[in-house]
């Protein structure tokens, strides 16, 4: 027997769960103060998450997918990107969308059941939330192909969950991306749960990152609760992509602390104890401890931050709740670039139903 190939998956962590560096930090993290925007974004994501759930529970928001406990994944990946890169999120990347400039009120509008929430003011080229799992991975290949064809040093960054890596679209995407060497990064937010199906039941693969190997592209694992590790891993992948060296898969290991969505009850399939143990690896105190010990963060800073974030969220909620629904005929207005003659009659009928809302 001859060994024809050999592979390994590397795992990266910079801060241990207690917030202590495990070794030399990457350049961007050398100055602790430079990490404050990441900390701020993680806190904002968590507070927004809590508010969204509260709004849903009181009937003022639709079904919402929480990212509780996974803030380092979404903030880490977004902070590694450039503004002109393209984000192709699934439905659990609120923090990445916020970091890139999508408005709090726009996100509320989307989750509140209004298409206008996906017509965000910026960044205009980012994709909206993709609900069918793994489907957005293929879009990232097409976006990356367009960038490459147009000789742009931009990258398509797509995010999917652990469950999505079982889907054919994921495999087809990483295979195509590898074959064409497109500038794309596939971030797998491995939160260990696909609704009720745990990671161990999802696949016999030892890691999800190794799926990249079959596609002929690099696959790496990072501690998804260490924002420095996520940012570093994604930044490395972005660098490769921008240099024309093709796509990568970055598997971020984290844990879904919440229900799958507000429509789910995770107590049906996992114990409260198993979840509560995971608070020891919470990404937010981890970075806070590091910042405090580095002398870059104080109790007063924390209080000021929370006050500021609460103010921003409250103002966004107010704007969201004041936003009137679109008129019924609006469902026709972006179906095609122009309203087809064949739909004029139906549109008129919808317009005439205005005011029937509460009939």
């Amino acid at each position, binding site marked *: 027997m001859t060994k024809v190939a050999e592979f390994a998956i590397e795992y990266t962590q910079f801060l241990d769960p207690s917030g202590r560096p495990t070794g030399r930090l990457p350049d961007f993290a050398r100055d602790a103060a430079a990490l404050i925007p990441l900390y701020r974004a993680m806190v904002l994501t968590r507070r927004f998450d809590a508010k969204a759930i509260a709004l849903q529970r009181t009937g003022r928001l639709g079904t919402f997918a929480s990212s509780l406990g996974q803030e380092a994944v979404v903030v880490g990946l977004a902070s590694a990107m450039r503004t002109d890169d393209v984000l192709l999120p699934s439905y659990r990347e609120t923090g990445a969308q916020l970091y890139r400039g999508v408005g709090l009120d726009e996100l509320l509008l989307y989750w509140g059941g209004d*298409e206008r929430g996906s*017509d965000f003011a910026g960044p205009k*080229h980012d994709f909206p939330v993709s609900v069918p799992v793994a*489907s957005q991975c293929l879009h990232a290949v097409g976006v990356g*192909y367009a960038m490459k*064809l147009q000789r742009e040093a931009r990258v398509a960054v797509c995010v999917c969950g652990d469950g999505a890596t079982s889907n054919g679209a994921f495999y*087809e995407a990483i295979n195509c991306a590898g074959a*064409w060497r497109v500038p794309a990064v596939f971030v797998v937010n491995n939160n260990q749960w696909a609704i009720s199906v745990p990671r161990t039941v999802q696949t016999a693969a030892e890691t999800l990152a190794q799926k990249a190997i079959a596609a002929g592209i690099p696959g790496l694992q990072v501690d998804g609760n260490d924002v420095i590790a996520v940012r570093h891993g994604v930044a490395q992948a972005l660098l490769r992509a921008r240099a024309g060296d093709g796509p990568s898969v970055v598997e971020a290991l984290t844990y879904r602390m919440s229900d799958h969505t507000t429509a789910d009850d995770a107590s049906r399939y996992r114990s409260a104890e198993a979840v509560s143990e995971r608070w020891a690896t919470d990404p937010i105190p981890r970075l806070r401890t590091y910042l405090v010990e580095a002398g870059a963060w104080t109790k007063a800073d924390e209080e000021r931050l929370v006050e500021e974030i609460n103010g921003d969220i409250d103002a966004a909620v107010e704007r969201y709740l004041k936003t009137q629904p679109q008129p019924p005929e609006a469902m026709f207005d972006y179906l095609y670039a122009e309203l087809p003659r064949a739909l004029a009659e139906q549109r008129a009928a919808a317009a005439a139903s205005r005011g029937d809302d509460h009939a």
Partner: protein
Amino acid sequence: MPEVTLVGAVTMALARAMAEDERVVVLGEDVGVNGGVFRATQGLLERFGRERVIDTPLAELAIAGVSVGMAAAGLKPVAEIQFSGFIYPAIDQVVSHASRLRNRTRGRLSCPMVLRAPCGGGIHAPEHHGESNEAMFAHMPGLRVVIPSSPQRAYGLLLAAIRDPDPVIFLEPARIYRAVKQEVADDGEALPLDTCFVLREGRDVTLITWGAMVKETLAAAETLAAEAVSAEVIDVATLKLLDTDTILASVEKTGRCVIVHEAAHTGGFGAEIAARIAEKGLLSLQAPLERVAGYDTIPPLPRLEHHYMPSEARILAAARRALAFA
């Protein structure tokens, strides 16, 4: 003016679109070096290069999904699915994304892509190579569904589909890919995507069809003419969005109508046309509507296929029933 077949007209339109707009890219299985299994993309690789004429991995879902991403990012992909029988894996991307990207972002992003596929039976091919699934696509909001039936219409409609700012499913009847040659001017003139084509004017009965069945339907009209019956033949061409006006005007004139399609009877697009006539033209009918369609069976393998396909005889029988009704 060159004389070309329907598939030749497809190639001509693709080349024209690629020459006039550098955002147009062609992708699919074997479309590059091989020029497509039906040679629809013959010569494009040599002329436009491998960056714009892309041999894809053998994955239909990817072909559709990658096209969505390309389209949203500013390209105009024209993707080929090798046979419409292999289009089913691609439907997820067509329905879940291509058709709704503009709507769900309120116009911030859009999806100007064309998904081409040879369709229909009668080419003595193996299983899964003879599907007529146009009604599935015509049911889905946000799409356009187009089926040409002649070289001239293939050229003009495909150019229109590529220039259209929204997704178009472009189904090409493989049975008539090389059935006739026609003079087609490579003048870049597109045909409208919102009208049916009246191929033959008549007073006594309206025969409505599309795609390869236009051939048998025109033959039936010719036979009827010899019997002093004047049949009007309409090629629907664009199933979605449907030009109901042309159909209603014809039925109002003739009072009798036969709808012909190769796809299975139940839920075929003929049902939609029949319903439109029932809604808006019922009182102009002087006889019950007739539908001549494929049976509600799995399309048989080649040895039985000719029994499945609506024949000129079946069309004539239906037309005569309609004409005899008093």
